């Protein structure tokens, strides 16, 4: 722990660095960019990252347990698209919502089952189910790329809801973050996630139900994706399924990884998600104010993600002795 010598490790960890960068960026933007420090803009920043942050919470739980969920965005967009499509074609609200809940649950269970019981690597499972969910819903259940929210539906009303002039999704994000914090820190199942992520074999040996907990994480991630999807639809009054093919998925991973949640599992928490979300939110907002085209924004985000992964690889090096064959 004292190997660093002239600095103790606490001030060197990734979360601290990222937080410092976020603060520096914030100050720089506040000084350099007109209109950045404006309260409305600040609310916009928080709002812009709240959906991303919610998705990142689900992703964080999965990553801490040494997995990854590449199907999150597909579940988010396609479940809500199907829900709205059902509503638009006259299915009753309760029944439609029940269908969608069942569908989301099924995909979460499928992910979890294949990862936990069939021992298939999470990245392949979720890549495949993500592709399947998008393809199936797009080709079989809905008719066009974007599905609008029906007039006067509660999802539309949700989008208009304000509290203290702050949009409702910010509160949802805060509430979920607090719940996840309690879950990860103070519940038995939450602690299990860390044990299983740190050393799955040891966790299994001491009697933790590793496989059921794995399934739980993917189901949790799927439901979080549904909530994020509903909020997206609420603020945009429709859901555009093309978002699945956008870089949103990588933004989620970016938020989690850049916040300091190691991809090798067992490390990090809700605070890391918040820090990561803050940095990305400030960055995106600043880039938008500077008027960088979206394509270049993608390039910059990709470069940052690459840097984050390299730093992650250096800070959390893969242990060659314990790395499993086929752990790619």
């Amino acid at each position, binding site marked *: 722990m004292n190997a660093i010598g002239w600095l103790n490790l606490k001030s060197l960890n990734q979360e601290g660095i990222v937080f410092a960068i976020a603060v520096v960026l914030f100050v720089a933007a506040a000084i350099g960019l007109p209109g950045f420090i404006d309260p409305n803009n600040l609310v916009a920043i928080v709002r812009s990252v709240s959906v991303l942050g919610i998705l990142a919470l689900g992703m964080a739980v999965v990553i801490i347990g040494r997995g990854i969920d590449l199907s999150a965005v597909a579940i988010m967009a396609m479940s809500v698209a199907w829900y709205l499509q059902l509503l638009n074609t006259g299915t009753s609200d309760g029944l439609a919502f029940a269908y969608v809940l069942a569908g989301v649950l099924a995909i979460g269970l499928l992910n979890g089952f294949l990862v936990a019981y*069939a*021992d298939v690597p999470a990245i392949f499972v979720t890549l495949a*189910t*993500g592709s399947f969910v998008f393809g199936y819903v797009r*080709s079989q259940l809905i008719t066009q790329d974007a599905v609008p929210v029906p007039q006067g539906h509660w999802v539309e009303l949700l989008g208009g809801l304000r509290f203290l002039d702050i949009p409702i999704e910010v509160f949802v994000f805060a509430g979920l973050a607090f719940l996840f914090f309690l879950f990860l820190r103070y519940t038995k199942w939450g602690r299990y996630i860390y044990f299983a992520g740190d050393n799955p074999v040891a966790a299994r040996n001491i009697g933790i139900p590793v496989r059921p907990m794995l399934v739980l994480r993917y189901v949790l991630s799927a439901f979080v994706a549904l909530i994020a999807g509903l909020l997206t639809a609420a603020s945009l009054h429709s859901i555009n399924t093309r978002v699945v093919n956008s870089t949103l998925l*990588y933004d989620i991973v970016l938020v989690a990884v850049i916040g300091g949640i190691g991809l090798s599992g067992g490390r990090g928490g809700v605070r890391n998600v918040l820090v990561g979300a803050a940095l990305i939110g400030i960055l995106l907002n600043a880039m938008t104010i500077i008027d960088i085209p979206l*394509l270049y924004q993608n390039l910059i985000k990709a470069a940052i993600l690459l840097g984050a992964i*390299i730093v992650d690889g250096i800070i959390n090096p893969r242990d060659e002795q314990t*790395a499993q064959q086929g752990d790619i």
Partner: protein
Amino acid sequence: MSFRERLQSWRYNLVPDHLVGEILTKRWTDNAIPFLALVVTLATFGSIIPGFFKLNALQESTRQLGEFSMVVTGMTVVMLGGGIDLSVGSIFALSCFSAVYVFFILEQSIWLALAASLATGLVFGAINGYLVGYLRLRAFLTTLVTFIFGRALFDILVTTYAADVQLSQATSDVLDFIGDSTFWGLSVSVWLAIILAIVTHIALTRSRPGWHVLAVGGSRRSAHNAGIRVRRTVFMTYVFSGFCASIGGFLIACRLSGAGPGTGLNLEIMALTAAVVGGVSLGGGRGSVIKGLMGAIIVLTMTNGLIRLGYGTGTNQMVLGIMLAVAVTIDIRWLKNRHKVLNEVYVAPVYLKMGETQSAVPGSGTPYELDNRLSEADHIGLGELEGPEDVILDRDDNLYCGTRHGEIVRFFAPDYVRSEVFAHIGGFPLGLAFDKTGNLISCVGAMGLYSVSPQREVKRLSAETSRSWTSIVDDARLRDPNDCDIAPDGRIYFTDSTKRYDAHDWALDSIENRATGRLLVYDPKDGSTKTLLDGYRYTNGVCMAHDGKSLFFAESWACRVHRYWLEGPKAGTAECVIRDMPGYPDNINRASDGNYWMAWLGMRTPSFDLSLRHPDMRKRMTRRLPQDEWLFPNINTGGVVKFNEKGGIVEAMGDLSGGAHPMVTSMREHKGFLFVGGILNNRIGRYRISGADPNWTSPASYWGATP
């Protein structure tokens, strides 16, 4: 035979259960599933899409296939090395753009465009390789990020230069030829893909760098320990993948004369699915270029077919997702459980009702009645020897035996205290015989028939016979050569006990009880080996009759001795001379009084005889019980039996105390003594035979008094 037993015998003797296990031992079963999928896919789409196999349609699909299969070849190599490359779509698109840019905008020659394309791919691949190979980042996420990066770059470039490309006047015959023409009926891209596949296949299977890739993929740590430069090897796989993708990109640039936002879209998941569906294992080490190509054809046929059938947006992703999930799951489960399945199904017992036998119990009054004479034997090499299966003496009275360690040990006459390793062969030397010129011939378990000259030169005589037409496991190989003897004309007759198990798994063979033992002959004149008889239950000892016109051989698990005629009216046929013995016969050798000695390696028990009539029970036993709780032949008691030329039993002797010679696998008479060996024993016994000819020796009996 009761009705139940008749049913059992039909069920287990007529249904070839054992073939399932034998097929599963084949490496090609790995290819069977993807190949079947390929056939089914082609047949399905060929039948529901009219004109699917028409030449024009095929031409267009194969052009696409050429480009795609190149990308898949690159992906296959990366996956064989234990990695994954998701950035192939981006490399493909960027290479395509490079070619387009150089050719249409800079208006340079097509060859310069090709060079630009390749350079793009190599540089991009090198970046991936550096990050994954040298920095040891996670392949999946890293290439995912470089994929986004490359895609973002491509999108920017394409939107910036799209109009310029449209307005360009550049043309080239070469470009048109590559893009549109055919050469001997196939398009350039298909030719290139075939050449690339062949070169890659040869490199992977027959060159040092290729082996390194497979070794790293198979076990990274072992490869490192073996001195392979793991990081550089991984690096090179990504560079190769970039190279492959860039050729694909160049070809599509030629075909479409431009680059669009759709170029290379979803290519990574298609290539990944193709490789996995074809049977290239995640995590590396297993797979081949051919498998990748099969997967490429399946995926492309499927996606193109669905588009032509008019299914809407998203269908492709749905089908790719299903195919990927199913293929990955099958791959993982298959890898994990293959050996378990094999263990489960390989042992396929058959039904056998053993005949009634006479008792061997002391005092029972039968010819087989055992006594305690062998317990009086002196011991030779006690505690020094492990597993003297067979023993033999030369003209100078020296004693030879094989050991578990693959050696032939010689004990020196007259007291047999001093010993030396006569020769090291390996395997497990079993049956021994001296030929006319004093060469020691040995059946070496798990290896073959060997000869050791008096100067100790070891020479392999035979390790295989001709393969039978209906075999599934390779029955040309000798798995368990057991005993041999030499005819007056110098031909060596020997047995190979089983085709289905290795020598050390003899217990499994006894439980299965399938008749796969053979009698073979090796002809020293032309070095050929022929199979004479097949289909015996564990052929074992062989002994030339005193007149040299026939030979006896033992069939252990059936407790029978057969006579095979070399000359005379029955030449080439075998007849059973002793049946339904109470013991399992092993080696047979000549006795001085014109009779024959036969070893019993164990005794029949009513319980095991009963279990032979219940193949279902034995099958369950091998699956559910640990090996040390299996019921198999009793080898705690054996003996030595003397029989005459007609198969009549003369006498039997044993070691009832079990202290010195509980099981006997061979015995050799020499100058009035009987030398006794046992495959699980730690000594050779020497027993004085009362009334035996004190001058009789085996070499003299075979080859005359003087050499």
